């Protein structure tokens, strides 16, 4: 049933070109029965938020390996709030030092998944935290 499927936007913010992780996550979520939209590379926070609203997603999952996460992830959360879309679950992944995680959570990123995380864990996390 189409209505009951979780919709996820997998997004690559900033200039980072490493998309192996984003693509693996996108496929794994799709294989787990979710609807997945992948933004492709080099998206600004504004573009990501516009796509999230237009596609009516439940989750925005961002991947970043360039070190710009502290700048870009919180921006997406802020813009979602501005657009009355704060109910969208925002998660992140990539090369993100543990010391940055408390800051990101404080800024409204629900959780951060670092290298080595099994895709199953991300699937479960989304299922447990999205109410359809």
């Amino acid at each position: 049933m189409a209505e009951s499927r979780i919709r996820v936007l997998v997004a690559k913010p900033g200039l980072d070109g490493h998309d192996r992780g984003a693509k693996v996550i996108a496929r794994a979520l799709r294989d787990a029965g979710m609807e997945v939209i992948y933004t492709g590379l080099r998206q600004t926070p504004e573009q990501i938020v516009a796509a999230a609203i237009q596609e009516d997603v439940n989750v925005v999952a961002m991947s970043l390996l360039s070190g710009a996460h502290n700048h870009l992830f919180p921006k997406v959360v802020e813009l979602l709030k501005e657009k009355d879309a704060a109910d969208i679950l925002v998660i992140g992944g990539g090369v993100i030092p543990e010391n940055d995680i408390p800051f990101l959570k404080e800024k409204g990123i629900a959780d951060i998944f670092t290298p080595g995380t099994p895709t199953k864990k991300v699937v479960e996390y989304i299922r447990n935290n999205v109410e359809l």
Partner: protein
Amino acid sequence: MSEKGTLQELTNAKEKWTKGTVEKALSKYKERKEEFVTSSGIPITRLGTPLDLQEVDYLDNLGFPGEYPFTRGVQPTMYRGRLWTMRQYAGFATAEESNKRYRYLLEQGQTGLSVAFDLPTQIGYDSDEPIAQGEIGKVGVAIDSLADMEVLFHEIPLDKVSTSMTINSTAAILLAMYVVVAEKQGVSLELLRGTIQNDILKEYSARGTYIFPPSPSMRLITNIFEFCAGNVPQWNTISISGYHIREAGSTAVQEVAFTLADGIAYVEAAMKAGMDVDNFAGRLSFFFNAHNDLFEEVAKFRAARKVWAKIMKERFGAKKPRSWMLRFHTQTAGSTLTAQQPDNNVVRVAMQTLAAVLGGTQSLHTNSREEALALPSEESVRIALRTQQIVAYESGVPETVDPLAGSYYVENLTLEVEKRVWEYIKKIDAMGGAVKAIEQGYIQKEIADSSYAYQKEIEAGQRIVVGLNKFQVEEQSLQGLLQVDPAVGETQIKRLQELKKSRDNLAVQNKLADLQQAAQGNDNLMPYILDAVRLYATEGEICNVLRDVFGEYRPVEIL
């Protein structure tokens, strides 16, 4: 390799061994796996014997090092003459800080520089552009203009070091800056040695720092070939890279096949632009990954040399032996490093170093243990460099040329990799070449399929990664990771703004207008870029001119 009679005897003996001794053992203890395969899915024999080498004619397939088809190496004496160049990729924050790291590495016995640029520099945005915010100085050094480049190479004599620059869509601009710094140091361009990556095709398929569409990008690349052939004869004009293709998740076979297919596209483009193949082919270089599967990696390097030699000689009719040689840089595989128990990565890197050296690399970067977590500290970079030095000076491996030659297993694997590479090249040829295959998303899809399969194997426990899905421990998070000061962005923007006030802006505008006109026509763009760079036109300004004329690449996204 053997006489017929003895081969028959051997076949019989092996069959007897298999049905007798082996079967008996298997009835008691099964083998660990139903099927043993390499990373590329090549079946692995239980036991290599001379029977595996029946197809190998020594002179045709292997020959001698320094001679066609170069299977055994590109230099006649390999590391007995000179060790590989130890070249650690580095660069972060500002030009001052990176300059300090380079001078430290040179003092530590490193023999070549390798410059990492930040993403705005790689994608042609000045540091004051909104899209650059958060990225300045993060994955490499920020270079906005010649002024930054002058600081980057301050007190580094450009006639004494060789410099590799990981720069692609903006390679022409960064090369122009390097050339002008050399001029200012009073160094003759004939003495400049180094490499620019300049490989746009793998940016579309695997690495992501493209700007322009394929056709003007290929024009810029051939412009560089031509400019260097006439002015900077020792410069490696391109580093055709499989490294990032492998990092994006390809197999070893795909890494070689897609890289050589890209190589074919560059040679064709330059020949189409009217260049004689022997005039530029000797300056083509390659860049591969050294992954974990030791023997398959060695076979991969050997097969790559052999296939490229054949392509250059037979397909393109190159006459000079230098044009047939596949010379390559290697980097150990970043994607094999684990965030868990990061000290284990030192061991992985040592094994990958061995693969690169047994495979006959010309230069090597070894990764540092904490790179799954952050940029490496000075101490970790030193361990990585020491790893190369231990293999070079203590292991004995460099003392003879191509030591694994003649191994039943490695020779057979080399043949098998070669066969599979040719199959891919034929398939890509049939699609109309690498550019077409990329535009159709074929190469991206092949890589993504392999990468997903690899991840599924790890999650199913079919592939063991020590510390990740087996032998885990509870661990404390690693402290003291290197962080780029967020103030770097502000400092860089301030420098840029001051530069724009102090230079001759009218002259800059004139040179940019000349460049625009040239870009609309067919001239070689290098002299125009050099003129603009000399007057401190910024990288972003030059790229914006080219964006106006060439447009920007819009990728197909295939999941």
